């Protein structure tokens, strides 16, 4: 056994219909949790708004103060957290399923380092605006994915080799990122460092719309790949026997999965461990086989929302970047995961 299994295996596998039903219920449950927590996040802060008033404000019946606090100040941040989390969750589900390894998520194998390098290059060399940084991150992520894929190619691509090559590439990218940071102007460095940890600070509606447009394009593409992903999970030969063109499907999934990760990274920087943990946690709840892209999206959204809420409040006056909170939560979860799969 050279890799950790991706899902609770056959022993706990439910019948297809029961699994679908359960997955649906999990999604609904997560959505309810997101709504509840979202209202809480929208209501708390230096201006306190009661939950009912938050709902009233969202429905368009707020006062001037609640309109300002809830709609202008907090809503974009909450929505960005949800969008970024969903994108990371879906990306993680795709890659963990592709590599058949829960640790094969983009944050471990370097795609977000690549996105970071792209973003950093734009910030540090061209001083570009948000859109340019996003473009740089997207390009960096895709170039990295292609490099990892090509280097892992040996008469086909195997999951564990993909992951290990990714680890090597991340080391190179981290070194490059570090070099870029060290040799840059201090003002750029400050901006880049915050972005580098993954942060939702200072994001507003201007950053929200491009993110949502990108997701609207991407989600159907991801869901279109989900069926092939489930077949690939049964093994290359079985998938090929069922008429799936194995390598072509893998390239397609690699591209859409990387795009999801890169979009999130472009918006908020590389938020660690969400794409690792969200699909795993969702899987524990749904107990279904397969990639489980939608439950992972809901779980990722909830995770980033909660982590950002915690990061804003845990350090007193100073607002920690959300990436710090996810790193702490993810690290603990990871330790437990590895211990259990010993």
């Amino acid at each position: 056994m050279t890799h950790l299994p991706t899902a609770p295996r056959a022993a706990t596998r439910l019948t297809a219909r029961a699994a679908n039903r359960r997955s649906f219920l999990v999604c609904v449950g997560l959505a309810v949790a997101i709504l509840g927590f979202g209202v809480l996040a929208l209501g708390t802060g230096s201006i306190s708004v009661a939950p009912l008033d938050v709902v009233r404000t969202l429905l368009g019946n707020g006062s001037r103060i609640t309109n300002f606090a809830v709609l202008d100040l907090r809503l974009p941040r909450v929505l960005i957290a949800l969008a970024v989390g969903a994108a990371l969750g879906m990306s993680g589900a795709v890659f963990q399923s592709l590599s058949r390894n829960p640790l094969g998520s983009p944050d471990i194998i370097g795609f977000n380092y690549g996105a970071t390098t792209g973003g950093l290059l734009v910030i540090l060399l061209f001083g570009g605006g948000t859109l340019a940084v996003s473009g740089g991150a997207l390009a960096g992520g895709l170039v990295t994915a292609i490099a990892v894929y090509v280097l892992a190619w040996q008469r086909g691509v195997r999951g564990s080799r993909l992951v290990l090559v990714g680890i090597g590439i991340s080391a190179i990218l981290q070194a490059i990122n570090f070099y870029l940071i060290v040799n840059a102007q201090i003002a750029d460095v400050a901006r880049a460092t915050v972005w580098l940890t993954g942060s939702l600070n200072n994001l507003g509606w201007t950053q929200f719309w491009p993110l949502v447009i990108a997701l609207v394009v991407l989600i159907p593409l991801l869901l279109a790949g989900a069926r092939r992903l489930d077949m690939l999970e049964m093994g290359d030969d079985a998938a090929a026997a069922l008429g799936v063109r194995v390598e072509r499907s893998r390239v397609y999934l690699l591209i859409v999965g990387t795009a999801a990760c890169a979009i999130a990274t472009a918006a908020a920087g590389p938020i660690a461990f969400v794409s690792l943990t969200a699909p795993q946690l969702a899987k524990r709840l749904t107990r279904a086989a397969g990639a489980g892209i939608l439950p992972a999206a809901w779980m990722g959204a909830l995770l980033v929302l909660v982590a950002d809420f915690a990061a804003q409040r845990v350090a007193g006056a100073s607002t920690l970047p959300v990436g710090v909170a996810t790193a702490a939560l993810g690290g603990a979860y990871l330790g437990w995961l590895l211990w259990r799969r010993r």
Partner: protein
Amino acid sequence: MSTGGPTRAASRTSAGQAPAPRSAPSRAAGLVVALVVLVAIALLSIAVGARSIPLGTVVDALFHRDGSDSSYVVWSIRVPRTLIGIAVGASLGVAGALMQALTRNPLADPGLLGINAGAATAAALSVGVLGVTDLRAFVWFAFLGAAIAGFVLYVIAGRGGSSPVRLALAGTAVSAALTGLTQAMTLLDTQTLDQMRFWTVGSLERADGGTLVRVLPFLVAGVLLAFFLARPLNALALGDEAGKSLGAHLGRTRGLTLLAVTLLAGAATAAVGPLVFVGLAVPHMVRAITGPDQRWVLPYCALLAPALLLLADVLGRVIAKEEIDVGVVTALLGAPLFIALVRRTKAARS
């Protein structure tokens, strides 16, 4: 086998069974060559820098410590930096060889498996949270961090070594979490950002004579312990059962090896920050020269790993106008080698 293939296969044959074992005299001669290489690169490291000093002047300044500018640069900056490079390089090389032998894993490296990150995080925590400033104090935190990371890894790996993939993944995950933690601290405390950056990537730039003196006892102890372990590790290379029947104590050998790795990686990281890949590359090259016998692998590593580290440091000083930290250079040099090893390792083909 002699081309540095997977350790798993290479180390299964013990010293006595190695096909066409090289004669002791030729391996000893090779050791002398390795020493000459190290000395040559050390001289290069002293001669090359922001201010280029001719080799003749360098040698002259080494023997006549007068008040001249060259003498000052050589003795107060270049020599300490070179010596600490040698000490740290030897430690990481030996630690890498030990880990590869212990885990029977060709991809093992104290940097890659998160041991160095554990040491760096604990040291950074002691500096940032507890306000420790003396290296003599925080080197103990570095040991603690390295030991905890090593222990976690060992627990994860399970008994008797684990698959290369699993171990490399576990190590990457552990160091990713730890690096995140160190980064968070630099963000919370922007004033120490500049000092902390030392803990994010390894650099010889800050190391001085005092650093060397403070960590040297630990490094020497670690290297001596490693040499003491060469024979039992050879026996274990045959497999747990065969090793036991040869009189090796499994538990004791594993425990002492982890102790040696902790000492070496912890002290090296306390001195210069976490370095990746130094301990990965050299043992592979060395085994291609010496065969799998640890009694030869370890001394060769102790000479050639520092040569590689110093070379990387010199490269970092020469390539760009602004100096590139040695940790960046070793990553850039080591990662392609790691990928090449991955492509050759059988276990990664599943």
